[in-house]
């Protein structure tokens, strides 16, 4: 077998695997696995109203961030 084929296969398979691994680690760090019931239930409460409220929250956070930078 050609060396290139083997190195490509190993690189691609381990690369894809590590993509999954990094996604999982990111999820872990950002606390997405801390509270499974809330995330499952959260899907039930997904509405325009909640989206607006979430937007308002991020606006408030952005404002604080820009204030502290100045």
């Amino acid at each position, binding site marked *: 077998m050609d060396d290139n084929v083997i190195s490509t296969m190993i690189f691609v398979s381990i690369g894809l695997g590590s993509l999954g691994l990094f996604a999982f680690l990111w999820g872990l760090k950002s606390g997405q696995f801390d509270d499974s*019931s809330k995330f499952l239930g959260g899907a039930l*409460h997904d509405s325009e109203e909640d989206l607006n409220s979430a937007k308002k929250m991020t606006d408030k956070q952005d404002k604080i961030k820009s204030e502290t930078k100045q």
Partner: protein
Amino acid sequence: MQLSNKFSACSHCHLEFDKKTMIYESFQQKDHSFCCKGCQNVFHLLKDEGLESFYDKVGSKKLHSVNDQHASLSKFDQEGYAKKYITSKNNLHEISLIIEGIHCNACVWLNERILHHCEGIIEASINYTNHKAKITWNPKEIKLSQIIEKIQSIGYNAYAYDSHLQEERVNKVRRDYYSRLVVGIFCTMNIMWIAIAQYAGFFTGMSQSIKDILNIAEFALATPTLFYTGWFYFKGSYYGLKNAMVNMDFLIVSGTLSTYFYSIYVSLTGVGEVYFESVTMIITFIFAGKYLEVLSKKNAVDSLDGISSSIPSEQTIINSGSKKVVDTTLVQAGDIIEVRPGEKVAIDGILYKYTGNFDEASISGESNPIYKNQGDRITSGTICLDSVIQYRASKSFANSMIQSITTLLEESLSKKPKIEKIVNQISGYFSLMVLAMSLLTFIGWTMLGISFEDAFIISISVIVIACPCALGLATPVATLIGVAIGAKKGILFKTSSHLETMAKATTIVLDKTGTITNGRPDVINFVKEKDFDLNLLYSLVKSSAHPISKAIANYLENMDETVKEYQLNEIKNIEARGLKASFKNFNLLGGNAELFKEASIDLNLNSSCSVFAFSIDSKIVCFLELEDKLKTDAAITMKKIKELGLEIIMCTGDNSIVANNIAKKVGIDVVYSAMLPKDKADVVKDLQSNKKIVITVGDGINDALALSSSDIAIAMGSNTDLAVKVSDIIFINNKITTLYDAIALSKSVFNTIKQNLFFSLIYNFVTILLAVLGYVIPVVAAISMSLSSLIVVGNSIRIKRIFKNG
């Protein structure tokens, strides 16, 4: 919702109440009814805030009715409070709160929404699983007391908890360990299939270019494992060296690090074989064990938070006739506290007004409720069962029983088991010996005049071969199988190392109630004096939740399947005496001898057990004798355990007559009776100072101290959350026979471990010798390594066969 005509449901909390007591109002062309002002206020608040979709989300679930009496909020803005609970960052404040009254997802949604609507709150997220909230706010725009007020205004309550102390930190450590473990497992899984290709290539021939590709891939996988997952061991050996100590961590680091650099050297020069897969496997396997340890520690911490949160955070104080709600920690000795039925007592004191029954099972182990009169002592942690009482606090919260038990447990958690210290010491010597040997080998061979390169490889191979693979597997595989068999038999080991300690145990300390006995009364004798309608007795006992009433109802149901309940009138619960009711023209009376004495009805009885008599129109028609029965096979189990060579001791909070009676029946010779939780712990400590290894078996908070100070703690059943959490081994099926199984299993596992260790030490001795002499070429090392591991694993699997039919 279909309701009977008499009751109607509250529009907010959905609880049902008598129609007459409801508050009615018509709002937006709809009729609403409320159980109280609090619920009505919350209902309107939600409408005003545009959050009425809460009611769609909550469905028909029932909530708590809104309590609008709260302690003063001013303490939240005091400086001491802020110092203890609030952390500040970039001019923003952050606090962790526990929110009371959360039932479902909709409650979480509502709390988050109302906080998000609040000006000045930057972030608010609530964990549904443990009801803990993290809130960040801008102190210039809003005060903490206003935030708490907001939460209270929608019918919930919040109090701060100190996240720095316990759970938060443990959680963070656990998450960190978990990511490291995941990386390790991922790399090991991938490196294994590359390694298999290399093994195959070794036997069938493989071109150097393919070898190079595989080496690079293995290098890429081994590097993160060694330096990310294995970072813990680098740190450990650094601190060890700083204190002039060579520990097991150092051996792992020096072994894996030298193997790693040797493998890099090999892949660059193309001479010999690489050992990247050994590096990842050793690190990952050892780290997995470490992770399990962290996990068990987290469970223990969770349980402590659990007890603290089960203690009510507020107390009702009576001050010159008027009631005031204050924070539990602010109550002083001498204050008069009111406790309502079903509430837990948080502070020790003396009963001052009214009388009532107390459930002391969690403190003294007494299975029957205790009737308390004015002037009697009330202990924190007990539950007031049936009446409103007032008592005078004799201590502050910090000095009360429940808080001192919590503090003691917290201290015991930070102590390390003895066995771990010994293992660390021995491994220290072992590591030093191996390092010295490798160095001597290197010097020896260079003096003999072979090349630097060969001498280096030989000395490395000494470390690699000594890096104890079989030795490392000897204990974990055997214990893993032991733990798995245990789980099938209803024995849960918190950590596998307990198997070892248990096998060496010399003494068992048993609690009586709930351990040797069932922990609840059962009817043992039923005497009918006259013929009567059984349904009357059944209806009477059905009206009460007292353990004795429950036992009788159960007994009647078993005796006669056709018993049915009548609608009795004027049911009255006479405290610590019994029950009174009427049906048609009959006057029913059921209870203990005291009750009939007071009613001047003649009851001639002499019995050593609890008696429940039943009379119709002042004539005794029957009586029942009840007793806390022994568990099935208790006596046989005790005999079998004695045959294994263990000494059995019984420790109970009950009086000596009951204790000796039970002990005689099961064949226990040493009995300590009327023991307080601390006395039990002292008994355990005395035994330990006499060089005994003690197993304690118990089931309540009253045993928690003894459990935590003994070498092995076993909790029966799932009776008390706390006892389960402080214990090392849990029996799920609540059978006493499991105790024998557990001891036999641990002995068998321990024997296997000894065989394994003996074999692997011999193996290590021989192979190190061969390696020092330079006879071990790397591939032989690899094959003999896996062969020795296979022998150890095979020997351990034998345990499974022994316990297959038992």
